[in-house]
């Protein structure tokens, strides 16, 4: 087992990894930019190293600075968290070349699944259902038109090197294809450095259902059930839950089998997630995420298992500490992401937090690195906390989430707590009538206040 791990990340996930290390008796090294010198992950880590000025490319994305920090502190392994360098095959390779363990899958698996068009092909060969679409990249409008004619409109142009909803364009009809190709390629190029795009059939209002998997170096591969993440704004997840109200046991079984086939196809090691789109009872592979995800607490709450500790154990060469039969899902968990933004306009709202009171009580978990008088810097993404509610039933989980959101006090900055409150109060949400089109219905509230207590 490692004696010292460096966490190549910040914010709540860095803190989350520190907690797992504490429980495993592993010493921790936090790296931070100058903007994060007073961050909680820096305060709670055993050692800290300032690696650069605020901007990502000079600090959290600076491979040599991160590796150098590991070298001077004697860290044996690096946990990349999510985002930043978590899915950089190059970073994983450099980590290994420098004699350190990268806590995640093999660099070539990261690379293979990171190129989305290639990932589709790998899954197709393995027999995992994929959406109708192009066979690899589409180089120009003519190639795109040929594919679109075959699969039928509407189609979705997607960045091959991408994620997070950028470099994506929905095309309803042929007349829009040329300009959509131009802007998708431009956005892909500027966001990911590579303008390559591919095409998929666009499903109207599907449900996003993903499966958590864990693989180890002893040939074990398990799934930890699903998370439904349909409530998204511009392809950014806002609310996640498990189990999905769309799945009965039969469908769950078929999707879990497909997820394991997908992971087995690349001999997957460590934590990963297979993302599917669900339309009726048909499901299609869209992406594999080769890292721990933001919404992992949802799975932890229903299974009672610690995914980060498993990641560390797997990276240290140990087998997964449970079998598929041991994994049982109990009750229902919902997570709401709390962002520092205006709840109506979604404009980010960095600044100093003055009052900060977290909800607690039965079935409530909060993952956050914020505290009273902390400064939310403008350089990084706006998520400041995750509130997770667990109940014996979905109804209880919803009630607990409502009272948790009501008692979550943040003053000094704006947050999307009011929007989350509206979502979990919404009748369609309560009835499980959700899809990726759910949030389109939400518009800024009328001047008349919605009845809430507190905040």
């Amino acid at each position, binding site marked *: 087992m490692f004696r010292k791990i460096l966490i190549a990340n910040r914010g709540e996930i860095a803190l989350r990894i520190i907690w797992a290390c504490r429980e495993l008796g592993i010493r921790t090294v936090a790296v931070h930019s*100058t903007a994060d010198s007073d961050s909680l992950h820096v305060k709670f880590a055993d050692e800290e*190293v*300032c*690696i*650069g*000025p605020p901007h990502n490319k000079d*600090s959290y994305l600076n491979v*040599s*600075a991160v*590796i*150098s*920090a590991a*070298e*001077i*502190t004697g860290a044996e392994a690096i946990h990349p968290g999510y985002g930043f360098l978590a899915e950089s095959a190059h970073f994983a390779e450099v980590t290994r070349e*420098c004699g350190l363990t990268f806590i995640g899958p093999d660099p070539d698996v990261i690379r293979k699944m990171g190129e989305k068009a290639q990932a589709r092909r790998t899954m197709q060969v393995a027999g995992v259902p994929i959406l109708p679409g192009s066979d690899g990249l589409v180089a120009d409008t003519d190639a795109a038109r040929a594919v679109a004619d075959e699969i039928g409109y509407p189609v979705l142009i997607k960045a091959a090197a991408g994620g997070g909803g950028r470099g994506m364009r929905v095309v309803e009809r042929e007349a829009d294809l040329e300009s959509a190709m131009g802007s998708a390629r431009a956005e892909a190029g500027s966001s990911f450095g590579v303008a390559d795009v591919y095409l998929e059939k666009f499903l109207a209002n599907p449900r996003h259902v993903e499966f958590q998997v864990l693989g180890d170096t002893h040939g074990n591969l398990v799934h930890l059930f699903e998370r439904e993440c349909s409530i998204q704004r511009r392809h950014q997840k806002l609310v996640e839950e498990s189990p999905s109200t769309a799945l009965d046991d039969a469908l769950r079984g078929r999707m879990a089998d497909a997820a394991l086939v997908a992971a087995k196809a690349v001999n997957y090691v460590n934590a990963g997630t297979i993302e599917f789109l669900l339309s009726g009872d048909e499901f299609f592979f869209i992406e594999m995420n080769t890292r721990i995800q933001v919404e992992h607490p949802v799975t932890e709450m229903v299974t009672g298992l610690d995914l980060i500790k498993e990641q560390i154990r797997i990276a240290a060469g140990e087998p997964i500490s449970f079998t598929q039969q041991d994994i049982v899902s109990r009750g229902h968990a919902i997570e709401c992401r709390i962002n520092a933004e205006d709840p109506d306009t979604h404009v980010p709202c960095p600044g100093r937090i003055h009052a900060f009171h977290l909800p607690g009580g039965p079935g409530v978990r909060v993952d956050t690195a914020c505290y009273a008088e902390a400064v939310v810097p403008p350089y990084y993404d706006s998520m400041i906390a995750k509130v997770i509610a667990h109940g014996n039933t979905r109804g209880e989980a919803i009630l607990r989430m409502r009272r948790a959101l009501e008692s979550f006090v943040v003053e000094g900055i704006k947050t999307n707590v009011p929007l989350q409150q509206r979502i979990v109060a919404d009748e369609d949400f309560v009835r499980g009538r959700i899809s990726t089109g759910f949030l389109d219905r939400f518009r800024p509230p009328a001047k008349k206040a919605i009845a809430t207590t507190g905040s």
Partner: protein
Amino acid sequence: MDHKDLRELIDLISKSNFATFELEREGFRLKLVKNEAASGSQGVAPRLEPAAPAAPKAPDAAAGAGDAAPAGNGLVDVASPIVGTFYEAPSPDAAPFVTVGAAVRKGQVLCIVEAMKLMNEIESEIDAEVVEILASNGQPVEFGEILFKLRPA
């Protein structure tokens, strides 16, 4: 009032004929007193930039919030631009690049910070005299860590 505003205000008052200046707003109070006898400036020293050499009539600034780290006595800080290991000499058996009291020219190498097996030479940005060496040979240093204090020539 943010950092930039505060510096502008201090600058404005120091150039004026006022001996004392007080400002009070909600949650914030500032008092500036010109101290003719002070030989250096005391003010907020940003961690990443060389501390500016003092003008003789610089005011003492007592800001309402936060602690000032005095740059003191007109010295310039040389901060490490990278994470790595500090080496005072080009190789283990060679003489150090500089010693205390040495005169350095702009562009002259002060030390090496090694990162990932690459030896990065850290150069002086000014003509100066080395007043203090804060890092020791083989010591790990982080981004922004002060390595030298120089007195501008």
